[in-house]
């Protein structure tokens, strides 16, 4: 059987998935499937996420108290569990973003030393 070929995608960095989920949720409550779709489209299809791995991450965030979950109905009348950012989660998102920018600039410094020197 012929398999559908996918474009090679970037493996998501460990630990960044949590941040991406929090980021996605800051525009309002979402269910798991929508979160996955959002991350994928926003990254212009370049991130490879097994959507299954979203659920352990969501439960992890819920256990930390950064998100809250509630069952509700989608526009298509499908029962789904919606996750919502808590105030604690918002603070966490800010922290993670800070750390991320620091990480990016640090790595960038190493990878492009000439540009920073000039």
């Amino acid at each position, binding site marked *: 059987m012929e398999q*559908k070929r996918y474009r090679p995608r970037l493996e998501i960095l460990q630990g960044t998935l949590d941040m991406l989920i929090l980021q996605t949720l800051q525009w309002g409550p979402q*269910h*798991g*499937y*929508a979160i996955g779709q959002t991350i994928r489209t926003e990254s212009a299809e370049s991130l490879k996420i*097994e*959507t*299954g*791995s979203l*659920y*352990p991450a*969501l*439960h*992890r965030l819920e*256990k930390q108290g950064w998100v809250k979950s509630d069952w509700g109905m*989608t526009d*298509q009348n*499908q*029962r*789904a*569990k919606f996750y919502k950012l808590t105030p604690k989660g918002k603070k966490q998102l800010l922290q993670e973003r800070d750390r991320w920018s620091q990480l990016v600039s640090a790595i960038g410094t190493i990878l492009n030393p000439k540009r920073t020197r000039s």
Partner: protein
Amino acid sequence: MNPFRWLLGRRRIDHDLDSEIRSHFAMAIAERIAAGEDPESARLAAINEFGNPLQAKEDARAVWRGGVVALVADVWQDVRFGVRMLVKNPAFSLVVIAVLSLGIAGNAAIFSLFKSIALKPLPGVRDSATSSVLLGRTIDGRGMGISVLDYRDLSAQQRSFESLTASMMIFATVGRGVDAQRVIAELVVGNYFETLGVTAQLGRILLPSDDVAPGQHPVAVIGDSLWRRSFAADPAIVGKTIHLNGYPLTVVGVAAPEFNGTIVSMGIDVFAPLMMQPQVWPPSRLDARGIFGLTTMGHLKPGVTTRAATAEAAIFASQLDAEHPIPNYARRLEVIPIWKSPFGAQTYWLPAIAVLGGMGLLILLVVCANVANLVLVRGVSRRGELGVRLALGASRARLLRLLFVENMVLALPGALSGVVLASVILPFIATGAAAAAPSRVYLDTSVDGYVLTFAVALSCACAIVFGFVPALRATRVELSSMLQDLSPRMASRGRLRSMLVVSQVAISLVLLIASALVLRSYAAAQQATGGFESANVTAIAIDLKTAGYDETRGPVAITRLLDAFDAEPAFEHAALATNVPMSLVDPGPRATNVEGYAPRSDEDMLFLYNIVSPQYFQTLRIPLLAGRDFTRTDDANAQPAVIVNETMARRFWQTPEDAIGKRLRSGTSEWRTVIGVARDVKYARLSEAPRPFVYYPILQTYAPGFVIHARTGGDLNDAMRRVRDHVQALDPAIPITLSRTLTEQTRVALSVYELAAGALTMFGVMTIVLAAIGIYGLVAYTVQQSTQEIGIRMAVGASRGDVVWNFLRRGAVLAAVGAGIGLILAAAASGAIRSLLYGVGARDVVSFGGGTAVVMTIAILASLVPAWRASRTDPLKALRHQ
């Protein structure tokens, strides 16, 4: 967190997670269909995109739980799976459980014997297993008691024990006349009950105030067993009078139910103050330093070792020797743990238990090998399942744990049914031993926490042993090969199975040889005379003192009895004696002086003795080597006479003939002339070394309690009745405290052989059956695996004989290798059971040869059956089958 509440909560979380993931797929598929894909490819794409749903669920679940809870839940899951597997393969499970429970039952039974002697030697006594004994030793190391006066000095001065207590064990009669019964009593010092931590279930215990001055407090505490046996658990027993050796004592209490005194294995029925000893068991032993009647015990202080305590005791010994010397004896005091104490069954039973325990563990190894074989076979059929589990990402550790839990699920029911089986077997062993014993035997062999813990620990060990090797193999297999080819490749596993079979044959041969050696010892011991002939002789004990006879009336009664026996035509000979030979316990020794002989200061001059009437040697058919027997004229008016045994004669006078006319005396009493020398007999045990022995004439040294031996040429039961009739005719008030044949009475000396032979035969049969199953299984399996090969061979012209021979050879070669190893092991190890052997060498050819023959025969028979079946294979069918 409570794991069970978590397990309930887990249901809800699982349900929630399932719904969540289902709704995810519903949306994903719906969206793709809306975008124009067909439902099937939409579904596949959604699944593809999702990844591994099981993994996701497992990870999400893992978020919500702590480590321990997770483990408990996982193990619980494994247990449920294990139980399902067990129920699915009932035949396999039942065989494994049955085989295991046999192995564990044997071991649990031996362990509860061990417990009753070493772990809980004195039921009802606080921490009895860790208590110690202060005892004296003769020069050749025989343990003995301590005199009452020495004990008083020692207990006042010693610093090693928390508190020391002591008792004197005596055989006595309780009751009067025909109702009298023989019991064992302890005469105890005042602090006895307090020190042991024993309470009274009724009334009070004995107190220091009961043990102040000789004869002042005629009181007694009775044991639970006597209370129920003889007084129907009378709640008003306190205040009533019992007669101990005819002396009235007031019962002040009944001891706690489980308490049976402080002599391991002996059931003590009466406890009276030591100060009553002159009254209940005259003459007085309270103020003679040379009478070593007290057994002591107590707990050492924390941090004091038996070595330090012995050093302290040695100092007291030399002090006592200086202040109160005992003629011909230098005190040797020693402190030993109770399990080494010679007072009681410990030293007698522990070697036998050690041997039995060793055998038990061997048989358990055979059991494990057998079960391992079964598990291996099942392992083959489960390769597919395990392969799938590995492929799905289960770690090897996780699989090992699963297999271990499954094995535990098999092993635990085995352990429990084994314990039940043991508790069924044990009473038989215990009552057998009790029936043979001359007095009430008490061993707490009940199944309790100790035994249960042991059985469960043993079953865990089994689960590891029989499960680990197969499990390791099952999980080490190459994934790809397993998934591609589910048909088993047997080469390597066949080798492991062969090794298991070889070791089973080897171990069962070792056990068979051991049981053959012990069985032959038992047979030899039964044939052994011990130097006298016990057949057709009575052993009926009477007690004149209880019936009120004193030192003047007693000898008259004895003379009248002897007259009556002489006139009795049914008796060939009849005689009286105070001690019965081969009754397991040493009769008390007497310090003896030999005229003209100056013993070294450390020489053991304590000799065992018996007080006998004329015709004793003829009745028991003990030959006299020199001189003459006692006669009716050797009475109080004649010159004091004595007869010694051959060992004694040779030690002091070189030859039996030279001993005649020489003189000796007991302590400082009058000198007695040696008038005869009798051949040695076994005085207590078959295995004892020759030792000096002295016979005193009962007509010169009156003894109020004795055994009547009458030899008959006719019916022994008739003779028994006639002896009793003569006693009744003399005086109906004289109690008959024991009525047995001499053979019954000496049987007790064989009880260890009897028990060991019984247990080892059981083990031997079990292990040979197991080994046969093992060989049969292996050959049958090989035959099954080689159906195709057999087909080809037969198709190209092999005869049935060739096929049979081919498989028979495999079984025979394995058996021969196993037997060879077994022979070497048995030869190396048989020395270890020398203590149980009598009359056969540790390398007895008959036992070794017979054992080997039996093992080889059974091995060949076990492989013959499947080999023959192989030869019935229809070649065409076999070829088509593959």
